[in-house]
């Protein structure tokens, strides 16, 4: 640890010697221990020792960045040369800047010491439980990863952030088979601070196993209808990130193409929807602490009871557009639960889908989405029917958040997000 700080001190000396007056840098060292299961048995163990150095130089309002994993003196010297050359090649733009002095802070998050034997046991337990409870499910791939990292960032405004993080991660890729009949793939992942719970009980893992086993003999839909789609938590997260990217992110506000360009303070979604980025929520593991611009990260509510509270702007975009900066560049999505049980939401649907996954083209700034419903089930007259195949869903991101029928009481907590089921109306579902 001392060596790491010495390295940062030395980097600052080198930057001073090069007479670079404004910069921000971050040095990181990390370690990964990864256990890989293929088709039900342990196949590979992977270890990664990595470093990363990143430097952004501001020279007369010209900005250039360089990165690399060589953080020896020679590597740092190269970073300085590359970042300076990039900055000096760039046109001047007074909107480039770094956050004012945030003080000095040390962050300790997650878990630092791995129990690899315990992790192997938990994965083995998971494989045994799947074999017993879901005999038709194949665990094509399961990855148990224990990651630790240590980072230190400083800038010329006086800020110093130092972070120590670590977590267990577990992700699966599964299918189900019966004789020669195979389902499509389904996958999910979770992050954990400890191994105190069986892996199958965390996040959406058990739901995914249940769904895939019930999907071996799907139906093909005939024709099309406009109905209700219940977004499962993983799917809701994907749709909300697409919405944020296309309606409130820095790029679409800067270029003026966002359909919510002048909607801050206005009702843009159903009052049932409250969306926030909450890195300090206890349910989020290793939430963001320092932003890419050098601010101390904050919890930020983006949409509150359907009202757009802010765009999601970094410092450059804020300076460019004269709008407020958001001190959050992370992805720690927390959506408030509703007051309806999932079972009651399903019971209220005349015709629709439970959307387990979405395989579609990237929506543009008009918000139109079109894609294939994956791992999805038909709902008719309030009852869940069979799984569907070759079924497409089409709609508009801006419209579906206005047409929210219900948000579930139940929440998925997987270490990276807190997400309910969200039922939306007005989606076109089409079959063959």
């Amino acid at each position, binding site marked *: 640890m001392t060596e790491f700080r010495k390295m940062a001190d030395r980097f600052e000396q080198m930057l001073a010697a090069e007479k670079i007056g404004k910069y921000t840098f971050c040095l990181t060292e990390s370690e990964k221990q990864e256990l890989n299961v293929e088709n039900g048995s342990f196949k590979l163990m992977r270890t990664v020792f990595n470093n990363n150095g990143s430097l952004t130089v501001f020279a007369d309002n010209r900005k250039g960045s360089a990165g690399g994993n*060589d953080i020896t003196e020679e590597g740092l010297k190269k970073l300085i040369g590359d970042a300076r050359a990039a900055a000096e090649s760039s046109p001047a733009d007074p909107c480039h800047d770094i956050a004012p002095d945030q003080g000095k802070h040390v962050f300790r998050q997650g878990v630092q010491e791995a129990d690899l034997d315990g992790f192997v046991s938990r994965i083995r337990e998971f494989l045994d439980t799947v074999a017993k409870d879901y005999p038709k499910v194949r665990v094509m791939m399961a990855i148990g990863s224990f990651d630790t990292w240590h980072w230190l960032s400083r800038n010329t405004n006086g800020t110093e952030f130092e972070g120590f993080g670590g977590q267990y991660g577990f992700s699966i890729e599964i299918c189900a088979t019966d004789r020669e009949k195979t389902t499509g793939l389904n996958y999910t992942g979770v992050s954990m601070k400890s191994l105190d719970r069986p892996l199958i009980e965390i996040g959406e893992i058990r739901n995914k196993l249940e769904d895939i086993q019930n999907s071996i003999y799907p139906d093909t839909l005939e024709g099309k209808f406009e109905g209700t789609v219940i977004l499962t938590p993983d799917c809701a997260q994907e749709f909300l990130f697409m919405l944020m990217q296309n309606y409130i992110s820095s790029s679409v506000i800067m270029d003026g193409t966002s359909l919510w360009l002048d909607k801050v303070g206005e009702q843009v979604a159903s009052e049932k929807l409250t969306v926030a980025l909450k890195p300090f929520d206890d349910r989020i593991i290793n939430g963001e602490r320092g932003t890419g611009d050098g601010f101390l990260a904050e919890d930020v509510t983006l949409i509150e009871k359907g009202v757009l509270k802010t765009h999601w702007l970094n410092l450059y975009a804020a300076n460019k557009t004269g709008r407020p900066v958001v001190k959050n560049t992370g992805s720690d999505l927390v959506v408030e639960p509703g007051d309806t049980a999932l079972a009651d939401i399903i019971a209220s649907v005349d015709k629709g889908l439970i959307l387990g996954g979405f395989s579609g083209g990237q929506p543009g700034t008009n918000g139109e989405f079109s894609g294939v419903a994956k791992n999805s089930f038909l709902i008719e007259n309030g009852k869940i029917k069979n799984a569907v195949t070759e079924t497409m869903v089409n709609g508009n991101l801006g419209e579906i958040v206005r047409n929210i029928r219900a948000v579930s009481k139940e929440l998925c907590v997987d270490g990276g997000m807190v997400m309910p089921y969200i039922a939306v109306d007005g989606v076109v579902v089409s079959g063959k």
Partner: protein
Amino acid sequence: MLQDVIGSKTALFSDGVQTVLRGHENRNRRVVLLKGDVVQNSRSDARGTSARVNMNGTFGFASIAEYSPEAAERVIKAATENAVFLAKHSGRNIALPKAPGSGVIPLNREIEDTEQKEIIELCQMVDRYVAEHCPELTSRVIVYTEDSQDRIVYSSDACSGHLVTPRCYIYVNMTAESKAGVPVEMFKAFGGFGSFRDNFSKPEEMFPEIDRLYQKVMDKREGVYAEAGYKTVVLGGMMGGMLAHEAVGHTVEADLVAGGSVAGPNLNKRVASDLVTMVDFAHTYEGKQAPLPVYLDDEGIKAEDAELIRNGILTGYMNDRESAEKYGMIPKGNARAWTFSDEPIIRMRNTCILPGKNTVEELIASVDDGYYLIDSGNGQADLTGEFMFGVTCGYEIKNGKLGKALLDTTVTGVAFEMLKTVDMVSDTVEWSSSGFCGKKQPMAVGMGGPHMRCKIMIGGR
């Protein structure tokens, strides 16, 4: 470029296991101009050393962010320890694949670096051209992206070699507004394998294509939604390439076959009309360099073409050494890793459906009521062969003539059913190489295809 400093450490390879030692460097250069403003301007380099040890079917892999003889020693030791640790739990006892033959694959080319200043000046030139010649746009984004791999591979019982794969692209993204005030977007990638100078020494050669892109965006402003349903379409060459990669390619990767993909029970059976032949090319196509040539993979296998479908019959899979042994096939060099810290897994290289005999004009003229689908933004596929492509550029076909442009939509189908509906194939192939395939790790891949007439599910309102 990497100099060979790890070769002497092959003396540390143990008997009774298969070991691969790799030095690996990735470089990235990126500049983004949004309406003329430089919003990203960065360079990065990452290098390191890795080793993989196969101990009777249990694999240990270790990597470190350092490229040196000492690093090579450490990763060989750590990879061996990882294999020993996991062997206690794996229960695998699989005979090591037989040695495929050894040799040395020579360095295929040098990597040339480019100063950031030149990159920014090129982006600014392209941006100025778009600003001056495309007046109806509401936004424009010019992206320069360059990535390269430089790998030195030593195998205990296969080939060794030194390979580099540089590629660079300029993406021109255009946004305009429809009469209803709704944004419509389209992009085009320029560039390919090679250095900045290989691809962009005559930037003015991009201008006619930029003009055509602008015209397509103007058409799309007046665009209509596709009518959802099962339609006759002409897939353009870029879509044909996406089909080759997503819809068929992934299902015939042997690790997915082992997982239960639809290709398992269909080997040596008809999966497409007899007009369809498909090959994963290693490095050469029709006597010329393939878009992203691969001469040696990261298990030390000398790369050769892998035939997948011949005249509609599924004839093979893409394999690594272990899966080839399992399926009684020959490994053709498909085990690839993206960065120094990645283990090799089965990946495509230059996957292509071969051309047929019709002209593109004949295909379009043959459709009474359908769609001409030209460009795709992204695609995904499933074990079942169910695939999805986002369509970013397309037109109606009415009575054999092109009609109105389409707004963004998506097509889907089940590969081995959809390919049986292919009844006309054009005599030319279009290639793309700018994309990344995602499968645990990213990977640069080439994909190509002819125009094809077929039936497909299209999404719409």
